């Protein structure tokens, strides 16, 4: 029992979390030109292939063309990908191969602050990458509502959620290849089944419930799409509430799991 309470102990943090964030930002800025390219090209390919290509064979969904339907989902997907991969592969490299965390905790910065800084940076990556995709679909005229301006702040919350999830996996992964499991068993199903490429309502009722409860991306897609299309419903409050409750819990869990791994 005490083991379980230890996993949810609330960490003490200070402004030093931003020193870790700044370290990652500095590295990112050194190579920002190459960083932008993949996050730009991938969604554009999906829009071309699925939007124009496949979309020609698909009936309008709730009055939207298929390409308009999937465009905001691609923004949400980029939030998930950028933050999840930042706090799995990239954090693991810093922790395990570069021993950057060890170097930092020899200074007045604590391990809790290192992990928090990493998660804040993951959320920042979500904000940066999804904003690029958002700019593309806005420029392509696929976003009818000015409410899209609220998507960047949402992308930071979604980024925090997926960074915290990722950090939990990082804390328990014996080696870098182990990330194949969450990638294929968690991230890829979410990419396909979270209301991204077809409405959730096309699935049987019980699957819809399961999807909404266990696949976090469902919430991100619902909120992003509603803001892009300007179709606000009360159910969005549930989506936001889900993320606002689960994020801090996983955030605290990830810090304590990481502490367990690194402080010996």
């Amino acid at each position, binding site marked *: 029992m005490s083991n379980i309470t230890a996993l949810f102990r609330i960490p003490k943090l200070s402004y030093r979390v931003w020193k870790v964030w700044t370290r990652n930002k500095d590295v990112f800025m050194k190579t920002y030109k190459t960083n932008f390219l993949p996050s730009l090209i991938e969604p554009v390919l999906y829009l071309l292939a699925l939007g124009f290509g496949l979309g020609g064979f698909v009936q309008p969904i709730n009055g939207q063309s298929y390409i308009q339907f999937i465009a905001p989902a691609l923004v949400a997907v980029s939030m998930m990908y950028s933050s999840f991969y930042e706090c799995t592969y990239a954090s693991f490299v810093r922790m395990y191969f570069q021993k*950057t965390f060890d170097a930092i905790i020899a200074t007045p910065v604590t391990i809790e602050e290192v992990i928090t800084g990493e998660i804040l940076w993951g959320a920042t990556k979500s904000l940066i990458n999804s904003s690029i995709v958002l700019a593309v679909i806005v420029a392509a005229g696929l976003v009818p509502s000015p409410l899209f301006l609220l998507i960047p702040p949402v992308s930071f919350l979604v980024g925090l959620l997926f960074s915290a999830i990722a950090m939990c996996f990082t804390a328990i992964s014996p080696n870098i290849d182990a990330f194949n499991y969450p990638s294929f068993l968690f991230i890829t199903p979410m990419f396909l089944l979270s209301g991204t490429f077809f409405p959730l309502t096309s699935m049987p009722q019980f699957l819809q419930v399961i999807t909404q409860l266990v696949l976090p991306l469902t919430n991100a897609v619902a909120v992003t799409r509603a803001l892009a299309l300007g179709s606000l419903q009360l159910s969005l409050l549930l989506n936001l509430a889900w993320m606002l409750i689960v994020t801090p819990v996983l955030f605290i869990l990830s810090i304590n799991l990481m502490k367990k791994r690194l*402080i010996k």
Partner: protein
Amino acid sequence: MHLEREILVKAENLTKKFGDLVAVDSVSFEIFKGESFGFLGPNGAGKTTIMRMIQSVSPLTGGKLTLAGMDVREQSREIKCLIGVAPQDDNLDPDFTVLQNLIVYARYFDIPKEKAKAKAEELLKFMQLEEKRDTIINALSGGMRRRLILARALMNDPKILILDEPTTGLDPQARHLIWTKIRSLQKQEVTVILTTHYMDEAAQLCDRIIIMDHGRIIEKGSPADMVKKQVGEEVLEVLYSEEAMTCLKQNFPDARIDVVADKIQVFAHKPRGVLAKVLEEASFKGALIRDSNLEDVFLKLAGRSLRD
């Protein structure tokens, strides 16, 4: 004399367990301000574990450990401000250049940027790395990396410098350069705590040492006293043969006589010159008198069997 000196680090029954393994077994010691203190021992003796507890990154299982009067369990943040750490593992940041490594590190200590830059330039000069200031880490040699790690450990003007195996794996030139740098820091009254399994390094750099094995202290004192006490000032080495052995045993009935590979080593604890006289009288094949050293002490105390 020691009584008047200020105690900077004090360990009482310091204990660390990893599961069933007792890595550090109720160890007590005191380190004085301004001295150079060495931990020696084979792999797995518990040296690095003690270093990590002093740095207050590894929690104690038992006992008490204070630095400058501060308990590592309670004031780890304050303690980390006081110390500079050169770890055994190379954890320089490969995403940055030499100069950036120092500046980014200084930021973790809240050192203002201008001050950090000046300090970094000063330390690069001190460590003879000025020409490498804009080089990426992966392009540095092993010796340069070590010097940069040492420079990084000095960015916050530490009162206590922790060096975990500072020259392991370096070539002789690089080792001597690091030693020179450590000595000039000692002149500036920085307290140095180091671990090593090079006995010559300990003899060169340390005022006092502790020899550890299996998590326990097996001997402590100044290197010279320890050599004198444990193995005497001189060692006689003779090529092994049955006759030589018999003859040596007759000549030195009280001495410790070891056989190492094809050599007989005689630790006679006699004043200088006595061994030479014996050699004049009896002729041995391959006979040699040399000064005994810490390595002799170490092998006597820790035995010759392999660890790891």
